[in-house]
Every structure is written in structure tokens, then in C-alpha cells.
């Protein structure tokens, strides 16, 4: 007979879970494995609230098995290490992101692209190799294979570092892969939420000229004054959009609703690249002339491999980059999810797990 979440592993754990597709979260007792020879145990201090968490608790993608404990942007302190662990010691500040295991053998794993491993184990809502389900960071502690644990640079504040583990790497990875790194080039960032605001910060740190493309003027002052964007383009202003045609080398499109690609493709120069990191549920319209005429491309990207996630964190340490966050208590999570659904956050909620997760 299948064991209950509380009994399937030896160590008792506690977190908040959604139990049905209302997506409402509430206290939840479960369990985690013992710390194995290759494992690191971390006490979770903070966990970011990613929009994917919201999609999963509501089963928007049809892949959720309940109960589900979300959370894949967690930072904490190492409390235990296995005998094979050399990279970390007790007390280290570490993070865990979107995946906690992979096959380690396929071509993608061999190239440090565990995020594209067909057998990747996601931090939550995913079958482990032992058949049990993974539970994420809205919880008191995690046990993770050392390969999937990241060092947080000493100089970065922990709470504001949490979103780097998903939002950060999700924009950093394609910026590197698609070559959006030449100083002086012009980057457009469509959508100014959790992903978008990170793309602006990375873009500026890389020496790019950055234009935020947004559907309303609401975020303009912040984009320019606080985040350092050079320009702000309102996508619903036809004249401004026309004046910006053919001016951008790259665009990171973070918009997760269905939206027209044609106006964005028009903003690109010859050989321009538009990378979608938002995940609209339905297909977008792509008139082929829009990419044939200027030899443009539309590319996808899905968070990042572990090596490049560490690279991204080190880059953030060097440039003092963290997310803009609103810190919340665990029991405010349902209100936060409702506000997130309305994009009412500047720009990531982070749960103060250690100080507010209590039985």
C-alpha cells in the first residue's frame, strides 16, 4: 500500500501545500529522505514565489498531482553534509532552484544542461528516481544531491537572492546562449515582472542599452529611475512603436499571456533575436514574412543548467544584483498568490520561511 506523504520518508517535514485546483495553500505535514552520502541538507530561510508556483497549484498546465508543495527559489543554511560532499560545509549559505536531480548520463547532462535532460527531476511536483514525489521550498528544510545545490555569494542579501534561482537564471541563460552580451547593443525587455526586471538589471550590468516594452505607462518611472532602463516603450502607442522599428538587437519576451509577436519582431534589426521566456498556454501567431525578411529568429529557453546557474550567481555577486522583492509571511501566501495573478507585485514575493513557517 502506498505510504502517506508523512510516512514515506524517515525525516518529518512541514510546509504549506495546495490540495486541489482552487490553489489555496494550507499547512501540510510530510517527510523527507535521510541525508545520503552525496546529499546536502539545508534549513530554508527564504523562498521566492514564482508565477510557475501559481500555475502549478491551480493545475493550469494539467500536470499537477496533489498535494503539492511549491517553491523553487529557495535559499538557506547548510545543516548537514554527506561523506562525499566537499564543496559545502555546515553553515554555508546555499540555494536550490528548479531541479534537484537528473540522469547525469545523457548528452545534455554531460554538457551541464541538466535543465534539458528528459529525466530531470523538478524541485516540486515531480517523481523522484525512487518513485516518491518531490516537495518544494515552501517548507522547513530540503535534502538535495550536492550537484544541485548552489553557493550564494557572501555579499548578497539572502532574501533578495532567492528569486535569482529561477527568475534570474531564466533570463540569464538565454542572454548568454543567444549572445545578448555585446556592450552597446540594444536589448528590449517585454513585460516588467519577476523575469523582466531581472533582465533589465542583467542587461545594464552587461553594458547594453535597455528598453522596457510594456502595455501601460504605469511602470515607466520605476523602470527608468529604479531599475536603470534607458527607455520605456508603451506597446499600445502605435506612433512610438513605429518610431522604434528596426532598432533592437535582441528582445527578451517575458510576457506569459497570449500576445502578438509581430509588433515585437518589427522592433528587431536584421539578424535580430526574440527569445520567449514567458510561457503562454496557447500558440502565438507567427507570420513567416516577419522572420524571413530580416533573418530573425524566435527562440525558446527553459531556466538553466547548474553550472551556468552558479555562474549567474557569481555574476550577481560581482555586480551586486538581486531581485526587487516584497517579503511576506507564510500565512500571507494565498493573498500573495491572488495579487500575483493580477501582477500586483514589484517584482517578486519572497516568503520569510524561517521566521514565519510554524506549526
Amino acid at each position: 500500500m502506498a505510504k502517506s506523504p508523512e510516512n514515506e520518508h524517515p525525516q518529518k517535514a512541514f510546509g504549506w501545500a495546495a490540495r486541489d485546483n482552487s490553489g489555496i495553500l494550507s499547512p501540510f505535514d510530510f517527510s523527507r529522505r535521510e541525508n545520503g552520502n552525496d546529499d546536502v541538507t539545508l534549513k530554508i530561510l527564504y523562498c521566492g514565489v514564482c508565477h510557475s508556483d501559481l500555475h502549478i497549484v491551480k493545475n493550469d498546465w494539467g500536470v499537477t498531482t496533489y498535494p503539492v508543495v511549491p517553491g523553487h527559489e529557495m535559499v538557506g543554511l547548510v545543516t548537514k553534509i554527506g561523506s562525499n560532499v566537499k564543496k559545502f560545509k555546515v553553515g554555508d549559505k546555499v540555494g536550490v532552484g528548479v531541479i534537484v536531480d537528473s540522469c547525469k548520463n545523457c548528452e545534455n547532462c554531460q554538457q551541464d544542461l541538466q535543465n534539458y535532460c528528459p529525466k530531470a527531476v523538478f524541485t516540486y511536483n515531480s517523481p523522484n528516481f525512487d518513485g516518491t514525489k518531490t516537495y518544494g521550498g515552501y517548507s522547513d528544510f530540503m535534502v538535495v544531491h550536492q550537484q544541485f545545490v548552489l553557493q550564494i555569494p557572501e555579499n548578497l542579501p539572502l532574501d533578495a537572492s532567492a528569486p535569482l534561482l529561477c527568475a534570474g537564471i531564466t533570463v540569464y541563460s538565454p542572454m548568454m546562449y543567444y549572445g545578448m552580451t555585446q556592450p552597446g547593443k540594444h536589448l528590449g525587455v517585454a513585460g516588467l515582472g519577476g523575469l523582466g526586471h531581472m533582465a533589465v538589471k542583467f542587461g545594464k550590468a552587461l553594458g547594453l542599452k535597455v528598453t522596457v516594452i510594456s502595455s501601460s505607462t504605469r511602470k515607466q518611472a520605476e523602470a527608468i529611475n529604479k531599475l536603470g532602463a534607458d527607455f520605456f516603450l508603451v506597446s499600445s502607442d502605435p506612433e512610438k512603436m513605429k518610431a522604434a522599428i528596426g532598432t533592437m538587437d535582441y528582445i527578451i519576451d517575458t510576457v506569459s499571456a497570449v500576445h502578438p509577436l509581430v509588433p515585437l519582431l518589427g522592433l528587431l534589426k536584421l539578424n535580430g533575436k526574440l527569445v520567449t521566456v514567458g510561457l503562454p498556454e496557447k500558440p502565438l501567431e507567427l507570420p513567416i514574412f516577419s522572420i524571413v525578411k530580416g533573418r530573425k529568429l524566435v527562440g525558446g529557453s527553459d531556466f538553466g543548467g547548474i553550472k551556468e546557474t552558479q555562474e549567474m550567481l557569481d555574476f550577481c555577486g560581482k555586480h551586486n544584483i538581486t531581485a526587487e522583492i516584497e517579503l511576506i509571511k507564510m500565512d500571507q501566501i494565498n493573498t500573495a498568490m491572488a495579487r500575483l495573478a493580477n501582477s500586483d507585485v514589484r517584482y517578486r514575493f519572497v516568503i520569510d520561511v524561517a521566521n514565519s513557517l510554524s506549526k
Partner: protein
Amino acid sequence: MTKSPEERQPVKAFGWAATDPSGHLSPFNFSRRETGDCDVRFKVLYCGICHSDLHAAKNEWGFSIYPLVPGHEIVGEVTEVGNQVKKVKVGDKVGVGCLVGACHSCHDCTNDLENYCSKRIFTYCSKGSDGTVTYGGYSDHMVADERYVVNFPESMPLAAAAPLLCAGITVYSPLKYYGLGEPGKHLGIVGLGGLGHVAVKFAKAFGAKVTVISTSPSKKEEAVNHLGADSFLVSHDQDQMQAAMGTMDGIIDTVSAVHPILPLIGLLKTHGKLVMVGAPEKPLELPIFPLALGRKMVAGSAMGGMKETQEMINFAAKHKIAADVEVIPMDYINTAMERLANGDVRYRFVIDIGNTLVNP
């Protein structure tokens, strides 16, 4: 008073033109400019029939200017050169493709990408620098700036080489640019027509493994035995498509009708590239999840710059690559256009202009 096509330029010319969106072509007298200092004048020997000629003749893209003389896969023999011309001399065999002009000063032009210049001038149906409309290769002679004239090595069979000037460069350019022209890659070629069959030949010459993806099972034998493809997938055969998922480094999609690209994205390995060179009139559906989850991309490409067109011709000569053609007389053109509309050609019609274009 506006001059007639016959009077606009000093040198009389003769060809076949469409005069309205029926697309029906008939004899047409017009004129071309004199040979300028940088110009090359040549007698046209052969001209390939590109599907774009059909689209343009029938105004399917909405920007045709009538009367319209199509033809941008033009091969001939030089009869006169301007005094600043260095590349070719009288008697040389040369070709002109899709372009006859551009601004030469923008970022694209200075990077040998005249095909992406916003002021580019197409070989036909485009406003030339003097304001007159350009007329293409279904005609007795051409005059073009040396920059837009490519040399044909002696060994090349001219009729079969003509389609390289558009079909050839249209697939060669993205194979190189998107890094798909490398030994050991597995490439899919969708559609086996003028573009597709040349893509198979180039891809094999690059050392790739090639799979042709087609709706017609009848093309399998030719694809594998004649063109050298390694395998053949029937796109509506679910089992075959399923078995091939995640196996291709790149796909060149030459299909110009609206079609689903989700199955093609599925055929790509992670980090794979789907390059569109056909030009469907209506938008396609682009599913985002499969792109994201596999870090795949959908990209476009159009023709090629002049430097890479010459490079492509030289590569083709070296590897003995030419198109598979059906040579036709000029007065067969309307029948050929109908057959082309039905996909009834293996794989490019080429008009024997030199021997059959006769001014009555």
C-alpha cells in the same frame, strides 16, 4: 508625357510579361538602359522559373506592377562590359539572381547582405534607382551592375545551374548562417520541390545525414535513390513522425503553403533550429512550450548576399551540384506555370531563352 515601356530606356528589349493578375504571359516589347561604367550586359541563355515568379505574375503578394516580366534565375553570356568592370569580360558565362541593386552604404550592404537592405532593388517588379520598373530574365538580354553579376565556372552546365541563383542561395545561406552545414549533423528538409531538392544536395555535400519530410510517399524513391537522402518521412504518418522525434539538429522548411510546425519542432533535438525559407501567405501557429522546453528556435532566411551567392556557385561547381531541371521553350510558359501551381515538376522548369525566345 509618360513613356511606354518600349521607350523608357535607349536599348530595345523583348521578353514575355504578365499584364494582369490572371498571370497569363505573352510577348512584350520594352527597353533597357545603356551599359553604364559599372554594368555588365549579357545575352540571356536560360532562365529558371521560381515559384515567386508565379506568385508575382498573379499578384498573390499584393505588390505586383504590371506589365511584369518575371525571372530571377538568369544565366547568359556577356556581350558588353562598362569600362570600370573588373569581374567579367565579353564571352564569360554569368548569372543574375534576385537582386540588381541596393543602397551600398547601410550596415547590411557593408556586410555583404544586400538582400536585407531596406532599399534593395529586386530583379523584377521593383522600382530601379532611376524610378523605372525592373524587368526580369524572361527576356532576350539583361544589363546589371557588376556587383550583382556572378561568374559561372567553365564546368557548370548552364541550364541546370540557373536555379541555383535563387533556389540554391535561398537554402545555402541559412545552412551556413545557422551552422547546419557541418559534417555529422542530421538535417530535415521539408518539402521536395525546387528549394527542397537543392537543399538535399547541398546538405549531403556538407556531410550531413539528410531526412526528407514530405506529404507525398511517391517522392521517396527519388529522394533516396536519386537525390541521395538518407531517409524519408511521410509527415502525416504518425508512427513514422513519432519514431523520429528529437533526432534532428536542424530543419529547413521549404513549404510555402500554411502548415503545422508543431510536429516539425518535435522532430528537433534540444537546441535544434527550424529555418523557414518557404513563405506561406498566412501566419503559422507558433507553440511556445515546445520551444522553451527544448531551447529550440524558429528562424527565417531570405535569398542571400552577393558575396555568398558567388561562394555558393563556386561550392556547387566544386561538388558538381546543379538543379534537376525540365527545359522548356518560351511559349510553353503558361502551361509550365499551371503545372508549377500543381507541384507537377521535377524539380525546376528552366526556359531555353537562347534558342526559343523569338521576337515575331
